[in-house]
């Protein structure tokens, strides 16, 4: 006769205690969902296979956790321990069904193996918990939030595991070895001499202590930051699958709509889920360049602020919901989210006004987050509301907005000056409109999308000349749009002005389609143009194949179309070998669009050896110009470009290679201020390559390249 837990006094009480706690947990979670119901709909249901693969990758294998290897191991220890120990808990709360079933195969060997594994992971969890306590009480990494919640949760997990292990130990000491439970069996050896009644008492106390802690944990969890154990799975499943650089589309013609994000109700429920998933691990905070330079923006407190707002809105909702029939019968009102909390603006509640504008939209927070929370889209959403509804933004942005609206570029330069950079080149740069008029468009291989920075900023005009020189030297049949090009709208969009973005973008889509540019490659040296044309113009009906110049130039070299000088040769234009080189990755190139190796391939083709910075590739540190910050004063904290310049100088490199016009401006300025002179040069990868073009005929030589 199968009699599970016969040795446990009053065992049947487990059922009301555990399942009561479980019901409380479910009701508290359902109350969270009542607030979700007043949020805007999110529809993250497309592409289920990719979502499931992501669930395995991020929720079970937890790849992002291991970027901080030690914290990752600790977390994996607790996570897997917890998962495996749940088998034992499931057995207890189901009256031993689990054991009954799993004991059947192989004459109980399977259950014995499970018991052994549980013993091992119990020890691993306890060691991990101890480690977690050391981090919170002794080493105290800056990114963590230190509050009682974390200590309570750790104590509960530790308690649950310890009581389970020790109860088993007492059981073994009193009733004899349990097959497979080798740790308990060993621990019980010195206890065997104790009186049976003492062991029975200890066992009862520990066993019931374990159940009490499990129940308490369930009741505590919905109100704790530790809720991520329940929410991270759906949060990862329902993550943004669109390119990370594609901001949400915006409907501007609905006069009754709220533009952008103002209150909790303007967020999607997925945004609220983000809030309930945040565990305050602070990886976003540690990665944030604004926070690193002493600005009020903290991505972690922003997300937690959204969660706090959602919790505030729950006040007024009863834990046990009434059904409509019950309400009707007894004349009760439905309890609803607190209206005042729902009407409260997010800005200056969850995030300070200044912090909204401190964001460089570099995406380091999103990249760092182990549970795939989206910070940037929400911050841009807040900007949209401030700009489009309240006309409330840093004063410096007005001229930039007006210049984009009136002149089609944030520099406020006339369109007629767009081809000024071609002056002084020893060859002609054809303009698409001229080619079309002459019927020469069919032979066009590549459209070179110059971008406003390279067209108007004197330093970046040199980069445009280097790019054109490389294309020309490789014999690429390319042309530019000239006066017909305008700003892609990236800065306007990321500053929250989607109205100006949509005007500019629609104009460009129209121009590009008029010349059938969807049928050939578009090459640009600007990662912002690259991201917007490639990832965002689809929202306006544009389908273009855009290639970053680093990728294109690397291909030209690889395919043999562009020959470079042997390593020991001196360039025909004088030796511009840039000495020791480090690479600064652009956020919108590396992090947003995964272009990491191409700039390095270009440098390798130029015979350059690269010394990497600590923050490189997808973990790069922003130059400070993203998200429209190029056109804002940086008055709070220290300067982001100065911090990045410091990191550049630390490598000892003589040159920092960039592949973005904004990075070029910010790093040149930062380095000039950092070392008081030009000790470290800033060069675009195309400039480094252009200086090493082999056997360039005299008319294809680059006239000027050094910084």
């Amino acid at each position: 006769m199968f009699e599970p837990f016969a040795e446990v006094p009053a065992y049947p009480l487990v059922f009301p205690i555990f399942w009561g706690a479980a019901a409380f947990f479910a009701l508290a979670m359902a109350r969270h969902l009542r607030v979700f119901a007043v949020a805007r709909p999110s529809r993250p249901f497309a592409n289920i296979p990719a979502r499931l693969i992501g669930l395995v990758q991020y929720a079970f294998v937890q790849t992002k956790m291991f970027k901080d290897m030690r914290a990752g191991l600790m977390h994996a220890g607790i996570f897997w321990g917890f998962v495996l120990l749940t088998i034992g808990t499931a057995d207890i709360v189901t009256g031993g069904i689990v054991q009954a079933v799993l004991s059947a195969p192989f004459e109980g060997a399977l259950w014995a193996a499970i018991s052994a594994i549980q013993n091992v992971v119990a020890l691993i969890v306890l060691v991990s918990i101890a480690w977690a306590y050391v981090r919170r009480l002794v080493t105290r990494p800056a990114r963590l939030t230190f509050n009682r919640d974390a200590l309570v949760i750790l104590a509960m997990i530790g308690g649950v595991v310890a009581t389970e292990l020790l109860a088993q130990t007492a059981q073994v000491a009193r009733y004899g070895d349990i097959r497979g439970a080798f740790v308990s069996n060993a621990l019980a050896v010195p206890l065997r001499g104790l009186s049976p009644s003492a062991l029975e008492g200890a066992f009862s106390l520990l066993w019931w202590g374990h159940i009490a802690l499990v129940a308490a944990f369930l009741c505590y969890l919905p109100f704790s930051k530790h809720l991520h154990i329940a929410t991270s799975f759906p949060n990862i499943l329902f993550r943004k699958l669109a390119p990370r650089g594609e901001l949400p589309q915006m409907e501007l013609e609905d006069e009754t709509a709220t533009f952008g994000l103002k209150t909790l109700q303007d967020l999607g429920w997925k945004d609220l889920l983000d809030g309930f998933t945040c565990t305050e691990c602070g990886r976003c905070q540690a990665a944030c360049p604004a926070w690193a330079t002493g600005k009020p923006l903290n991505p972690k407190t922003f997300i937690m602020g959204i969660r706090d707002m959602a919790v505030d809105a729950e006040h007024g909702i009863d834990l046990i919901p009434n059904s409509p029939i019950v309400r009707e019968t007894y004349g009760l009102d439905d309890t609803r989210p607190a209206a005042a909390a729902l009407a409260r603006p997010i800005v200056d509640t969850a995030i300070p006004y200044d912090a909204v504008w401190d964001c460089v939209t570099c995406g380091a927070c999103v990249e760092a987050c182990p549970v795939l929370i989206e910070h940037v889209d929400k911050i841009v959403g807040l900007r949209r509301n401030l700009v489009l509804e309240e006309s409330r933004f840093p004063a410096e942005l007005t001229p930039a907005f007006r210049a984009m609206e009136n002149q089609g570029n944030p520099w406020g330069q006339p369109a007629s000056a767009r081809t000024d950079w071609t002056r002084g080149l020893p060859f002609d740069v054809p303009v698409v409109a001229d080619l079309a008029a002459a019927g020469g468009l069919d032979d066009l291989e590549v459209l070179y999308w110059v971008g406003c920075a390279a067209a108007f900023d004197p330093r970046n005009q040199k980069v445009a000349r280097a790019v054109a020189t490389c294309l020309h030297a490789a014999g690429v049949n390319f042309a530019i749009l000239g006066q017909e090009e305008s700003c892609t709208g990236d800065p306007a969009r990321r500053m929250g002005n989607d109205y100006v973005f949509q005007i500019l973008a629609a104009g460009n889509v129209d121009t590009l389609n008029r010349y059938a540019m969807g049928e050939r490659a578009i090459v640009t040296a600007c990662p912002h143009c690259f991201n917007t044309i490639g990832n965002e113009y689809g929202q306006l009906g544009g389908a273009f194949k855009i290639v970053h110049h680093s990728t294109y130039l690397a291909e030209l070299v690889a395919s043999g179309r562009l020959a470079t000088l042997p390593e020991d040769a001196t360039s025909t234009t004088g030796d511009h070998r840039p000495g020791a080189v480090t690479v600064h990755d652009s956020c919108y190139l590396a992090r947003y669009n995964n272009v990491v190796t191409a700039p390095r391939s270009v440098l390798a083709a130029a015979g350059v050896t690269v010394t990497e910075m600590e923050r490189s590739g997808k973990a790069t540190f922003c130059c400070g110009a993203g998200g429209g910050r190029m056109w804002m004063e940086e008055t709070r904290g220290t300067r982001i470009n100065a911090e990045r310049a410091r990191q550049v100088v630390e490598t000892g490199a003589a040159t920092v290679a960039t592949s973005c016009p904004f990075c070029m401006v910010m790093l040149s300025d930062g380095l000039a201020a950092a070392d008081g002179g030009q000790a470290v040069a800033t060069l675009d990868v195309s400039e480094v390559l252009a200086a090493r073009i082999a056997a360039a005929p005299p008319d294809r030589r680059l006239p000027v390249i050094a910084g």
Partner: protein
Amino acid sequence: MRIVVLVKPVPDPASGGERLGANGRLDRAAVPAVVNGNDEYALEAALKLTAAAPEGSEVTLLSMAPASAPETLRKALAMGATRGVHVTDPALAGSCAVSTAKVLAAALKQLEFDLVLAGVDTSDGLGGTVPAAVAAYLGLPFLSYAARIEPDEPAGTVRVRRISPTGYDLLEAPMPALISCTQALGEPRYPTLKGIMAARSKEIATRSLADLELDPSTVGGAVATTQVLATKVPPARGATEVVRGTPDEGATRIVEFLAQRRII
């Protein structure tokens, strides 16, 4: 408070393409038009004054401009003006400042207002005489170079801080009055999207010379008091040299630079 703001569409100064046609008149097709910068400051001042006392307040834009002007006027309406009055007539082409003032005065006679605000000058003509001339035609007090405007509605007066060569003059005049506005009044607002949407359906009334009961032979190019004989584009600025380095290096380079040009 009812305020009329005089507004002129001008070629975008930032476009750099402003040029005169063969007839000495502005080639308006060459560059996109924007609201004259100083007029935007006047409009901003008007919007702030009416927002302070919204009861019965309105801001009317008045513009004498070619037929294409409404597109530009909508941008000013988007900032928050109530409505627009657009005076346009083929006979007005080539008008001088005197004609312009005469026409605007005639249009103002048909409007009710407590104040008329205008930018101190326009970025295309830069004459700066029209506001004073309009005031003269209508016999209104004229308060120029306003850096601050403080109306006292119960008393029916307005006080203006007028920028003077030595500081400020404090002027007071009975309303209605005409005030020419400077940038010291405060940055013009950037329109909200709702403002842009609302502007699409705001009224822009069109007035011809006949509507204003003006004889076409008394205004326009034919009777212009001034004529443009020739224009010259200023030479492009030379290259800029930025001096970087330690203070000593910088100073040495600057001295060299000045010495080369025999300035020192």
